[in-house]
């Protein structure tokens, strides 16, 4: 015992560790801060789980385009309890986002961001962004069809940036197309850059919590006056507060324990996320859906009129972030009680409802593609008659590349994109090539997933799709760059 004390004192004398930890553990927190205050700790717990399971996964995961998918299957089936590790990592990631949202909502409703805790809120906003970025890059790590086509749509968004579109796309993907470079890039972000940023931000958030204390439960009439708040708060804490350990810590522990049991149950029961099909252009998933944290965005995009999409997709996120950062500056004093801030409560309610509704929209969208359209709906005979061999191959590519899952011919096929029965009257050959290669709207960019022969064939086929009496849409100067022979059409 004496030896233990002696060695602790030895360490303490040289590091001052206890002097550092003691205030963390025993600082006074408000007595009335009961169960409302557990959400932050639970978020932190999920983050810790992410780090631990993430490090374990990184020891087996192969971040190369050729092996990533196989290595995930290897973890699922060969590594003892490997599937559990992946399941925990996946579910805990979603749980962290949800818990963080609840924590943020509580802080917002209680106006805890008011003086002197403005920076607590702002570091929190950046933590939210970092966490979402981790969730997105994490989805890419699965390197399955969802990841592949989610990235394709991400790239199409980057393309919309005026002037710098190409550069933004190259920055995102590590090249003009999704390839091995892309995975390396996202791996570096997911395991080094973003976790580093998150840990730094968590540290900052903690330091600020210790410095500014935990806010009391809001009471109507107990207004925040910046000039006197800190002094009065510290006096109240001194007189009436309770030490963090064990009073508040107890409740945190219980809540975290319950969360942990819930997490393990979810992971055990539902298992890991994906990996879905191999990200192989021969098996294109034309129904890319993002993970849950992004589903609402996906839903929102699907409801936008195409013309406004560029503006909204680029500008809306920037505005949302600005507003979140601005919250504590817009009002940093005065009433904190929700009953005295009905407008703010309403705002929170509307936001939550909107996100829930859009998530629902994203999950169940009626414009879903017909998933087996490509392999089950034959090209109608009116579109096979009188075609050249190359155009017939184009009709095969149209099935093979799963265009049919989103586009209908003769009324059969997906309704996500426009029907293409008379597309040749609307777009010229060059415009068709552009649409296929670069996508646009909610159409994935096929890019190098179709080589020049496949593109020429499918576009050749599309150019034949017009009613007999209507001419092709030939923009002036547009020529059919078909090779000799193939030009002897019909």
């Amino acid at each position, binding site marked *: 015992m004496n030896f233990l004390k002696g060695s602790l004192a030895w360490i303490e004398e040289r590091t001052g560790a206890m002097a550092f930890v003691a205030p963390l553990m025993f600082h006074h927190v408000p007595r009335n801060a009961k169960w409302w205050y557990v959400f932050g700790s639970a978020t932190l717990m999920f983050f810790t789980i992410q780090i631990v399971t993430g490090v374990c996964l990184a020891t087996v995961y192969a971040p190369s385009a050729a092996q990533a998918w196989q290595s995930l299957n290897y973890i699922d089936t060969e590594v003892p309890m490997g599937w559990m590790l992946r399941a925990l990592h996946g579910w805990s990631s979603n749980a962290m986002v949800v818990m963080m949202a609840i924590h943020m909502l509580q802080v917002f409703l209680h106006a805890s961001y008011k003086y002197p805790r403005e920076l607590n809120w702002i570091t929190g906003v950046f933590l939210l962004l970092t966490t979402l970025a981790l969730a997105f890059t994490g989805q890419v790590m699965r390197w399955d069809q969802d990841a592949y086509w989610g990235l394709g749509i991400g790239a199409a968004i980057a393309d919309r940036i005026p002037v710098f579109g190409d550069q933004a796309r190259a920055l995102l993907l590590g090249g003009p197309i999704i390839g091995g470079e892309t995975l390396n890039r996202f791996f570096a972000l997911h395991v080094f850059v973003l976790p580093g940023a998150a840990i730094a931000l968590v540290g900052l958030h903690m330091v600020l919590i210790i410095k500014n204390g935990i806010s009391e439960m809001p009471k109507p009439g107990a207004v925040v006056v910046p000039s006197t708040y800190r002094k009065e708060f510290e006096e109240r804490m001194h007189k009436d507060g309770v030490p963090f350990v064990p009073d508040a810590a107890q409740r945190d522990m219980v809540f975290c324990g319950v969360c942990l049991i819930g997490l393990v149950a979810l992971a055990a029961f539902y298992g890991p996320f994906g990996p879905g099909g191999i990200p192989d252009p021969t098996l294109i998933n034309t129904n890319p859906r993002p993970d849950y944290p992004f589903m609402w965005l996906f839903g929102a995009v699907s409801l936008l009129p195409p013309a406004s999409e560029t503006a909204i997709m680029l500008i809306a996120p920037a505005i949302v972030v600005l507003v979140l950062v601005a919250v504590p500056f817009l009002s940093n004093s005065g009433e904190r009680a929700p009953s005295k801030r009905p407008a703010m409560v309403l705002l929170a309610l509307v936001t939550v409802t909107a996100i829930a509704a859009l998530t629902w929209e994203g999950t169940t969208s009626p414009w879903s593609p017909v998933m087996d359209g*490509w*392999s089950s709906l034959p*090209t109608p*005979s009116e579109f096979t008659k009188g075609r050249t*061999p*190359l155009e017939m*191959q184009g009709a095969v590519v149209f099935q093979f590349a799963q265009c049919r899952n989103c586009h209908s011919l003769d009324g059969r096929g997906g309704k996500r994109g426009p029907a293409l029965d008379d597309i040749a009257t609307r777009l010229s050959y060059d415009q068709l090539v552009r649409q296929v290669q670069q996508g646009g709207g909610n159409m994935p960019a096929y890019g190098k997933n179709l*080589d020049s022969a496949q593109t020429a064939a499918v576009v050749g086929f599309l150019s034949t799709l017009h009613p007999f009496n209507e001419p092709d849409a030939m923009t002036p100067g547009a020529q059919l760059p078909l090779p000799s022979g193939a030009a002897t059409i019909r």
Partner: protein
Amino acid sequence: MNSRLLLASLITWLSGCERPGGPHAVQPVAHDSLAWTQSAFNTNCRGCHSQGAEGAALPLMNANYWAVATDAVVIEAIAHGQGRSMPAYLADEGGPFTSAQIVSLVQGMRSLWGAKDGATGGESVAISPRVIAGDAGAGAAVFSQACAGCHGPQGSAGSVIDPLYLRLISNQGLWSATVYGRSELGMPAWNQAMPNRPTGLTAQEVADVVGWISAQRPKQQRVSDAP
């Protein structure tokens, strides 16, 4: 005692035997009925291979096909894919079927659409181009006599030596196109009348003309695109 039992069952449960989310082996589905074949075909194949003028690739709901095609070629194509646009359907290659299911599928298709008396009648031509070596020189003559009327520069059927076309089709695909034809679309089968060949081609002529078409591939394509 009771709690130990509970723990043991918890561990077996967690170790993956009975969870909906755990890794599953491919489900052994009953796959020996013709109803299974028809529905598997309708969801997985009919989009490309249909019947008559419908569908962009070779119609498989077609007795002429089953009279000639050997199980080996068919199974090979389904399991590992063929050419550029026919995906591999074997589970090991990312597809949905086990090898036993593929065999049942082929037998099922043969009994659904093959000639009812089991007649094949195509033995004389049913030889893969990998066995009969085609003579491209002789093939050039066959092409200019029998095919060029439709596929030549003046023909209405479009070129079959377009380099882009040749990058998309395999040699087996060229051979099948020539043998089975698509009479509903105006392309005669190998044993139907065509210019200068009132009774069609011989097996050797089929191999020759396919050999010649294949030899028109752009040089860098020849090795990689051969099936």
